[in-house]
């Protein structure tokens, strides 16, 4: 069964009313809303009672029609005032007196009906189908089925942009984070339940806190993968707010979740295990909390000759397939870098012979160099240096350099 409500100029009210009865709603036109009421008989009783309940909730003069198919309900709602309940099999008779302009067929077809002298649903329904097919084609037959009340179709469901947010204005401002987390937990529970019910997830959390004396405190967390785990989301907010707490007592809270489609992954039976994105994000957030955001991530080497040229990026969330093994699977000599380079006092006799610094001290046994490197001379971060690889008498290997602009010596790192 389908119900249709017709009330010109009141679409939001019609939608509000329809949502109370069904999630399956079609906005047939700006004046008409149609929705599925199958199964509501157990709640409200017979269709007449459902129609009266709709009339009671809508609270304004509207035409309400209930029928076994959506098109009949729509036509009846447009043409019959008040409540109209059409039983299955009675559609043709109920619609027969309606004016044909309520059918909603294309204008040229309407003009043709005028020329034929066809004015009502009943007259159109009575015409032979073969003749209609010969003159108006398949489209004409479809319109005749509507006029007879025998058309069958699915509802064209509306795509609703739902705002997944919660807002609360507090009577007494809260100065502590603990009660705030309590409220956020409640909001997240409600919002995650709503998202899950619609098979959605979130990849962005927005929190706006209106403060007592200061400007708004805004927190935006972008998640690497959509999730609906309320505990993980709460933990991320807790960590963020603990690290950057609001500067004054909180007057108003607004929490918004951006709804997106959830991550659906077909796992590979033979692929290596990898951290679940939800757990990894919480773990990274926990570590970020005490080491700082700039000190955790996956490094990416920059395409530059500048020493120590890299940037920290986000860690990958999914493993890709295994890479081919290296042809030369040798152990590479590693370089361990002092950040920043350690200042040193170096005695030279054409080459370094003795070094004194916080990290390396002693006579230089072997020194190989110099190698000169420079770059970015047009910028403030220019470098121009003379590098040496040295081995102390103890056997430790270091790379040292002389900054040719300041003539100062530094220990850049050691080989290991």
């Amino acid at each position, binding site marked *: 069964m389908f119900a249709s409500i017709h009330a010109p100029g009141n679409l939001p009210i019609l939608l509000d009313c329809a949502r109370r009865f069904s999630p399956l709603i079609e906005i047939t036109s700006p004046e008409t809303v149609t929705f599925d009421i199958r199964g509501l008989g157990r709640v409200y009783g017979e269709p007449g009672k459902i129609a009266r309940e709709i009339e009671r909730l809508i609270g304004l003069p509207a035409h309400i029609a209930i029928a076994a198919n959506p098109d009949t309900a729509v036509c009846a709602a447009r043409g019959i005032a008040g409540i109209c309940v059409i039983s299955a099999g009675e559609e043709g008779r109920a619609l027969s007196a309606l004016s044909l302009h309520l059918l909603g067929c294309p204008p040229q077809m309407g003009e043709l009906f005028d020329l034929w002298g066809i004015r009502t649903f009943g007259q159109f329904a009575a015409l032979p189908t073969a003749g209609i097919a010969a003159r108006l084609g398949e489209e004409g037959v479809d319109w005749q089925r509507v006029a007879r009340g025998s058309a069958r179709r699915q509802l064209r469901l509306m795509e609703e942009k739902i705002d997944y947010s919660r807002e609360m204005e507090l009577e007494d401002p809260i100065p502590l984070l603990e009660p705030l987390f309590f409220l956020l937990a409640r909001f997240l529970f409600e919002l995650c339940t709503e998202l899950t019910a619609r098979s959605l997830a979130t990849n962005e959390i927005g929190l706006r806190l209106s403060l007592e004396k200061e400007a708004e405190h805004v927190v935006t967390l972008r998640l690497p993968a959509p999730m609906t785990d309320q505990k993980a989301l709460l933990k991320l907010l807790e960590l963020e707010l603990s690290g950057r707490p609001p500067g004054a007592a909180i007057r108003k809270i607004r929490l918004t979740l951006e709804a997106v489609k959830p991550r659906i992954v077909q796992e590979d039976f033979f692929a290596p295990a990898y951290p*679940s994105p939800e757990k990894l994000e919480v773990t990274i957030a926990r570590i970020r909390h005490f080491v700082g955001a700039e000190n955790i991530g996956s*490094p990416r*080497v920059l395409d530059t000759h500048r020493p120590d040229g890299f940037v920290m990026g986000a860690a990958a969330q999914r493993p890709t397939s295994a*890479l081919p093994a290296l042809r030369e699977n040798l*152990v*590479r*000599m*590693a370089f361990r870098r*002092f950040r920043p380079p350690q200042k040193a006092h170096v005695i030279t006799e054409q080459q370094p012979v003795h070094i004194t610094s916080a990290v390396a001290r002693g006579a230089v046994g072997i020194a190989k160099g110099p190698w000169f490197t420079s770059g970015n001379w047009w910028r403030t971060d220019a470098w121009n240096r003379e590098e040496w690889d040295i081995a102390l008498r103890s056997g430790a290997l270091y790379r040292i350099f002389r900054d040719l602009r300041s003539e100062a010596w530094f220990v850049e790192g050691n080989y290991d």
Partner: protein
Amino acid sequence: MRPALALANTFPATAASPQATHDPASISTCLGVNIPRAAFTELIGGVSSGRTGVLLALLQQVTRQGEFCALVDVQDMFDPATAAAAGIELSRLLWVRCGGNVDHALKATDLLVRAGGFGMVALDVSSVSAATIRRIPVAAWFRLRHGAEHSGAALVVTGERIEAGSCARLQLGVHRKEVLWSAKLLRGIRSIAERRKWGGREGVCFDSRAR
């Protein structure tokens, strides 16, 4: 059950060493040095001993198998350029820089090792003073070991001195044998790796080569 990280592929033998074997596949057998999963491994060596080269070789092996790794770097001395040159897939490496704070490093390692899903978690305490290392309670190492056992990650701790007591299932010592020079270039380090715990066998010689 994932296989242990075999060092057979990462430790090539060098014919120049009298102790070296010519068959790379036999090195693992010779030393018994498969880095075990779900266990604590100590990788010990002094400055310029080649221990970081071994660590990079392990990270390279694990990331190229498609697994994720984490490196907790106490002194912030990891060099991404060297790591990339060593074949490490950097997008599969989570690098945590602790700026010299050992407490932060232990806490981060604990979180990572318990998070699950990592093939290997490495903690680099090299260049941390011996006094600071001694102050780390044994309970902290046991906690890390327990986390690794629970999550199945291979936990590798590298440094000059670790003092994790009986926590470690494998203790691998690396020391420098000689430095390889050519006319004007540093060519690499020749090192000897030996199994110190449950060991008793002779070490194996390997070269860490510069590019």
